[in-house]
């Protein structure tokens, strides 16, 4: 469960107070993009709230030590609006970076999983170009493929469905929903400052940082 209990933080104008049940898909509509960023950073333990509590499955990320925080973050998939890549690594290296750093899989297994993941998201471009050469949609496809490799229990989509054509938006929404429905108590959190972008995701709950909640 994701819990924001009377959270006050820099960059967010209002008090954040909501909870998202395990296994549900929720949309968080923010008044501006920086609020989405702050919420994601609070969930990932990059920021501690000034007041209140943030927890994911009972864990308050900002209280963890470096090692535990790294382990905690491996269970969360984040699709940043720009993809969230290392600019001097090519697409393939960015995709497999987490697996190859983890060191638990053999190279052949990493290749197999990486290719399967790319197939799932429908990426057909080159694997050896730098991320700067990719379109916004392709970046998000690769970011999604990278997240899939770790099978996270919580997926955070940070403005992922914004700035895309209708067909691209529907393709990414379908992917997100398909992953969410695979079960295992997966929770999906769509952070956006444009409520219209949430139309295709059939959210169980939409929370507006201004205070309104729609179920």
């Amino acid at each position: 469960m994701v819990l924001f209990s009377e959270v006050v933080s820099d960059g967010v104008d209002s008090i954040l107070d909501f909870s998202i049940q395990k296994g549900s898909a929720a949309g968080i509509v923010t008044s501006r993009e920086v609020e989405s960023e702050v919420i994601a950073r609070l969930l990932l333990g990059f920021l501690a709230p000034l007041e209140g509590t943030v927890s994911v499955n009972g864990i308050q990320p900002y209280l963890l030590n470096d090692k535990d925080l790294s382990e905690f973050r491996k269970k969360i998939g984040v699709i940043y609006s720009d993809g969230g890549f290392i600019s001097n690594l090519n697409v393939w290296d960015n995709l497999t970076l987490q697996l190859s750093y983890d060191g638990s899989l053999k190279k052949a297994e990493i290749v197999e999983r990486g290719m399967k993941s790319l197939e799932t998201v429908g990426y057909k471009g080159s694997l050896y170009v730098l991320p700067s050469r990719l379109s916004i949609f392709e970046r998000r496809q690769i970011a999604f493929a990278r997240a899939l490799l770790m099978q996270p229990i919580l997926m955070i989509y940070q403005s992922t469905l914004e700035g895309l054509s209708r067909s691209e938006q529907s393709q990414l929404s379908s992917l997100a929903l398909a992953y969410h429905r695979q079960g295992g108590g997966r929770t999906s959190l769509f952070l956006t400052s444009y409520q219209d972008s949430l139309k295709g995701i059939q959210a169980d709950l939409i929370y507006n940082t201004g205070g309104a909640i729609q179920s």
Partner: protein
Amino acid sequence: MVINRIYLIDRSESEPMVSYLGRSALAAYITIADLIALFTTVFRGLIDTIVHGRRSVVQVCMRQVFFTGNEAFKVVFVISIAVGIAIISQMSNVTDAGRGSLIGKVFVWVVIREIAPLITALVVIARSGSAIAIELGQMKLKGEIEYLETLGIQGEQYLLMPRVLGVGVALFILNVYFNLIAVSSGLLVSWLGWQIPLSHIKQGIISVLTLRELLISSSKSLLFGFVIAALGCNAGLRVGDSITQIPQAGTKSVIHSLVIVFILDVLVSFTFIF
């Protein structure tokens, strides 16, 4: 008149000497404390990489060895030939081309022990130290270090350890090349230009080239490499929110590296003398 006015303004606004010295001492202390903390992180990262077999970290390390070593090789090649020829020419003139064994000894004392580690370090400071600072500064500014950490990758381990080790190893290899090329070119020129028998110079080199001399040269190059990379990383990671801090980080890394490398050179030389 204008110059006088500017001079007067500068004098009136300059801080007192005691304050300046105190600030400089504090800055030096922070840099050294950061360096020690950074080396501790590097050491912990090395153990973790070995234990977990982290392939991506090894890849970054190999890439760093390649970029620092391979791409600096051309510059080091040219400089080492020039240094070899210059030292032999000077020594041949001083000794009137008569004492081949002395030339050989001076070659070991001057080139292998002092000049080779220092010049290769200078090349690497100019090329790689500033490049590391700028690269990490840009990564920090673009939020890429946070992206790495989002993936559960400890930024310090993935970014610092491979760079520090990579530059150390590359500098060690460059130092070996420098010595080999400088000695070979020196021998060749002394034989062709002054007809000094190669056997005389060789004898002089062999008589003083002990394991200790090689150890001094190697330990200097390794140490310089670690410090140059660590200072580059430190300067890069201190970049804040402004793009203008990136070139400043590059400059800072070069200046700090120059000062510390020369101080370390003296310290290592003294350590081995006593």
